[in-house]
């Protein structure tokens, strides 16, 4: 039911954008191992924010997608099994093909110390989970290159 409603809504929303804008949709890559987060963030970013959303469930998959798709921004989970968020960021920043992509951490850990450490790694910013699906696109947009 969720998918049907979501798809129905998206068709409406995208048609509306096509009529009113010649801008390409900004492409967001979400890398998160948690299904529930990917589902709600995708719905939020697509239907509220009008973004094109790419999904990856882990660091390795995310790096492959980032290299081939060149998203405008990557939302990156911190704690993931296998290659974690910081490890993924390092690999992306060390590769000339992906080093310019804006990366924003999305983390359930919200301590001030984490914020500082994560930014020092080269992230443009840090957003916290849980997020408000109505507000997430607005928060993401602040980090998009103008």
């Amino acid at each position, binding site marked *: 039911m*969720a998918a049907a409603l979501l798809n129905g*809504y998206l068709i*409406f929303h995208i048609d509306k954008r096509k009529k009113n804008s010649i801008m390409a949709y900004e492409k967001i890559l979400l890398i998160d191992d948690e299904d529930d987060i990917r589902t709600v963030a995708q719905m939020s970013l697509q239907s509220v924010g009008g973004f094109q959303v790419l999904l990856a469930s882990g660091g390795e998959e995310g790096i492959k997608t980032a290299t081939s798709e060149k998203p405008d921004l990557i939302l990156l989970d911190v704690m993931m099994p296998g290659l974690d968020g910081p490890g993924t960021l390092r690999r992306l920043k060390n590769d000339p093909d992906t080093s310019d992509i804006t990366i924003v951490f999305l983390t*359930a850990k919200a301590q001030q110390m984490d914020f500082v450490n994560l930014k020092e790694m080269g992230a443009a910013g840090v957003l916290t*989970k849980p997020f408000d*699906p109505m507000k997430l696109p607005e928060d993401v947009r602040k980090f998009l290159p103008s």
Partner: protein
Amino acid sequence: MTNNDSLKTDSFNAAMEALRKDYVNSWPEKRERLEIALENLEKNPKDIIIMEELRMSFHRFAGSGGSYGLPEVSVTSREAELFIDSFLDADEAISPDAIKEIKNYIKTLDSIFTAQAPAS
């Protein structure tokens, strides 16, 4: 608010409600996985891999609950995550009392999710 804005909000709310129902309905399966991990930990109280698995499960609920309109899920799960973290940080085996405490976190989560599920 224009008609288009109103339609957009209504569509979003309907989609969000459907996602929330799916999230709530997925709880029994996730609870079972938590309980199995906890049983394994009870048998192997020093097993760091099982402890990590359990901590990661609570970490996921902490991150997702509030986004689905269930902030109590996030709060309870974050407490459980930090509780398990304290044993991992101290490199300590999980005590029988700690097992009881984790069971209580699962019970609390169960009561939150059960209150959301439609009566059958």
